[in-house]
């Protein structure tokens, strides 16, 4: 903090007013622009805690279709909040254009300013800049799409009954994590196109499907070819997409509902992959922007105390043996990574020069901007986690091999462990490792139309106990038998699941 100029703070009390929020937003926006943050326009909405709970319950979106699971979420949130077991998050921000951020009316002006800096300039610029969001989501269309989805599902409920739609949605939700294209780029559409194409699609799919299934030929013909020719030719990772396009018995409206769930899953896909970066980026910027305001004399000491208090509780990382430990706090990791990059740029040590020759001593604003734009959690950690930060967080890794009676400390924050630790932490954020890799392997097109899924095992990890339940949902969507095989990298099937279960089928 250089020579403190004459202080003329924007506000001194803790109450907020609309004028104050506007002033803070303007000042924070100005500082953010000076640091080169590029954002969507902001739409700041003041809401009550009750409305916050509503927003919570519908996965943070301002509108969504109706489903009991959101009700469950709401009931849960409400219960916990009323008992004082949890505070509400002080902000929700939506990746849309304009970027919608919610401020809760209960907060003080310092908290509102913090949220504005965090959400409206931090998250917002991340949404706009990061390559995953740019590729996978269409910020300008999401609200319209949700409106379309809500109305479409409401109409389906009117026409086909709430139960019918609810069951279908249950099944789709069970596969939501498998409703994303990881590699193919989806095309953004306007809502008008969406409606037009939805009608065209209904017709087309039904016709196309009939062809596929019409050609069903008696089984005995060319049994050899049956083995060699799989359908689909290449395994399909997007289960919901495959079901939407190929499930034999779905009605057109059901396909559309599958599609809606799939689209929404796709929209949230980047958020799952950039949690550390996104929160780290936003936290870094609220920290930096508010300090800048302080240096300019625009906020009071009291303001800073309140801000720092909540900032430090957000980035608190309980150690692994604490009762409060529940994994690595993404805010802590992200914020520290961002701060560390700035440090490496501004005050590199010899170690940093050795580890990060290309960024040590460079312009930190540009370096951070590049990092934000071009990485996701996994690659970001792999690229930027420095030995110094590993030492600060005192990271260590544990190898848990179910075949062995003991756990082993695999690497710690020392010279020989840095690289290994970094790789392991990065792979922990690889979605491919976290979620079982399950793909559509084959459909018995000429036989009983059964669907075979394959689980490609990662490190011999088996599937969890809810697998049979999920298969029931797959079965409901597919309409015929569903099999799931866990295979090792050597293509050996080690476990297989079936729905309906074998003994139920065999009965004459």
């Amino acid at each position, binding site marked *: 903090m250089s020579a403190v100029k004459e202080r003329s703070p924007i506000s001194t009390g803790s109450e907020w007013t609309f004028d104050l929020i506007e002033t803070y937003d*303007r000042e924070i926006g100005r500082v953010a622009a000076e640091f080169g943050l590029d954002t969507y326009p902001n739409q700041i909405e003041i809401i009550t805690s009750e409305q916050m709970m509503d927003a919570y319950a519908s996965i943070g979106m301002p509108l969504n279709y109706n489903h009991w699971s959101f009700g469950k979420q709401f009931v849960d949130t409400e219960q916990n909040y009323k008992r004082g077991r949890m505070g509400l998050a002080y902000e929700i921000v939506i990746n849309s254009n304009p970027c919608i951020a919610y401020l809760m009316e209960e907060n003080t002006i310092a908290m509102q300013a913090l949220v504005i800096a965090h959400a*409206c300039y931090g998250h917002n610029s991340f949404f706009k800049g990061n390559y995953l969001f740019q590729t996978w989501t269409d910020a300008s269309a999401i609200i319209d799409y949700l409106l379309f989805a809500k109305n479409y599902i409401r109409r389906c409920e009117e026409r086909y009954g709430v139960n019918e739609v609810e069951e279908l949605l249950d099944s789709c939700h069970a596969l939501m994590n498998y409703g994303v294209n990881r590699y193919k780029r989806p095309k953004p559409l306007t809502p008008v196109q969406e409606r037009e194409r939805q009608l065209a699609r209904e017709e087309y799919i039904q016709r196309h499907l009939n062809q596929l299934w019409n050609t069903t030929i008696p089984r005995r013909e060319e049994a050899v070819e049956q083995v060699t020719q799989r359908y689909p030719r290449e395994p399909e990772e997007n289960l919901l997409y495959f079901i939407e396009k190929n499930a034999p018995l779905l009605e057109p409206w059901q396909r559309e509902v599958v599609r809606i769930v799939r689209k929404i899953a796709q929209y949230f896909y980047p958020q799952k992959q950039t949690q550390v970066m996104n929160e780290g980026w936003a936290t870094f910027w609220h920290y930096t922007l508010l300090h800048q305001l302080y240096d300019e004399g625009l906020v009071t000491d009291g303001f800073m105390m309140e801000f720092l208090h909540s900032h430090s509780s957000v980035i608190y990382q309980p150690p*692994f043996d604490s009762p409060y430990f529940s994994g690595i706090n993404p805010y802590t990791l992200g914020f520290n990574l961002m701060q560390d990059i700035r440090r490496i740029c501004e005050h590199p040590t010899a170690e940093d020069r050795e580890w990060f020759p290309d960024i040590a001593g460079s312009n930190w604003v540009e370096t951070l901007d590049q990092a934000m734009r071009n990485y996701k959690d996994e690659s970001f950690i792999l690229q930027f986690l420095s030995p110094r930060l590993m030492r600060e967080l*005192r990271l260590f890794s544990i190898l848990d091999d*179910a075949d062995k009676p003991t756990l082993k400390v695999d690497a710690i924050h020392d010279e020989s462990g840095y690289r290994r630790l970094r790789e392991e932490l990065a792979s922990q954020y690889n979605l491919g490792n976290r979620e079982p890799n399950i793909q559509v392997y084959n459909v018995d097109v000429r036989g009983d139309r059964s669907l075979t899924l394959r689980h490609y095992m990662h490190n011999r990890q088996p599937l969890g106990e809810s697998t049979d*339940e999920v298969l029931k949902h797959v079965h409901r969507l597919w309409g015929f038998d569903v099999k799931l095989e866990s295979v090792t990298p050597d293509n050996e099937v080690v476990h297989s699941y079936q729905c309906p279960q074998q003994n139920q089928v065999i009965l004459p």
Partner: protein
Amino acid sequence: MSYIIDRRLNAKKKSTVNRQRFLRRYKQHIKRAVEEAIHDRSISDMERGGEVTIPRRDISEPVFHHGNGGVRTRVYPGNKEFITGDEFPRPEGGGGGGSGSGKASNQGEGEDNFTFTISQEEFLDFMFEDLELPWMVRKQLKDATAFETRRAGFTSSGSPEKLHIVRSLRAAHARRIALGGDSRKEIRELRKELWALEAEPITESSEARIQELREQISALEKKGRRLPFIDDFDLRYNNLVRIPIPSSKAVMFCIMDVSGSMTQSIKDMAKRFFILLYLFLERNYKQIELVFVRHHTHAKEVDEQEFFYSRETGGTIVSSALQLTADIIDARYAPADWNIYIAQASDGDNWDGDSATCSDLLMRRILTKVQYYAYVEITSGPHQNLWYEYEHVREAFPDAFAMQHITDAGEIYPVFRKLFEKRTEGAA
């Protein structure tokens, strides 16, 4: 660049539909919880919502996830003493090497149940679901809420016939004083100067000054006159509010045998039955009076406390209670003004010669006046003569008289439902 929007007045309760969907889906669970609550709670405790607990496995939404097993490496923060190569046994409960599937509850210690609260309203709704008092349709037609108009201060808007002239003029006067204050003060000062000048001999210069002052004064007075005498926002109207007055009154008689043969647990069951009836009536009538009549060989009208909690012994003459009830109805509750409900609970004991008197009393003096008479017999033994006598009554008054047999507390709720099953076709 930024838009700031106040959404606080927007629709709250956006989640209502989702919440209802959730309740609908877990209706069975909730109903069970409600039934248990009725079963277990003390009587004074019925007037609140309830906590519903659903096993988490029934409510979970399954997804594919990794199970335990295989090889996995996890990175943890906060190393204290480990060095590479350390080995130690797997901690219980998977704290150290647990699966990363996030299956454990997020609230610290593993919670196996999903608990939430339903409001009193919902609680009762579940309790009374698709129940309807017999013949209620008939009385309900009369049950249109009547309103009474009462004054409640003044408002600044309203219809002309409610205009309050004195208040309006007072407001106008106040406004004129407030708005004209400055110019009146100025006029006063100018006048003072004018009088001073006029009192002195007139000179050339004072002549001009007087003229000037007069012009100024008349300009100011004109300005003052331009203030409207009365303006839109001076108007005050009488504020009249409509207050619903209960037009439909019910009285509920609780009749219970407190003779020696009635054990505390039988009384307890009877209590629950009365409570259910009371709660149900409460939802359908704006005003309910309760009359407690207890009897052994004599009947007595008592208060609630005594009714439920004091002990008596002795023989049983049911007709004494019916006699007293009939007298009370005649004296205090004219059937034209009151919906009369009677609930009688007994263990079926009665003095042998008395049962015929009972049915006679019922048919002649009571059943013609009441909406509904419900008799529950709480006994594990065989029926006695009162029951058989009452069966004749039921034949004679199938619509107004109901009887049921209960053996243990768990049966109260189903029996209650049975007693008040929907019987709409009978209601003309």
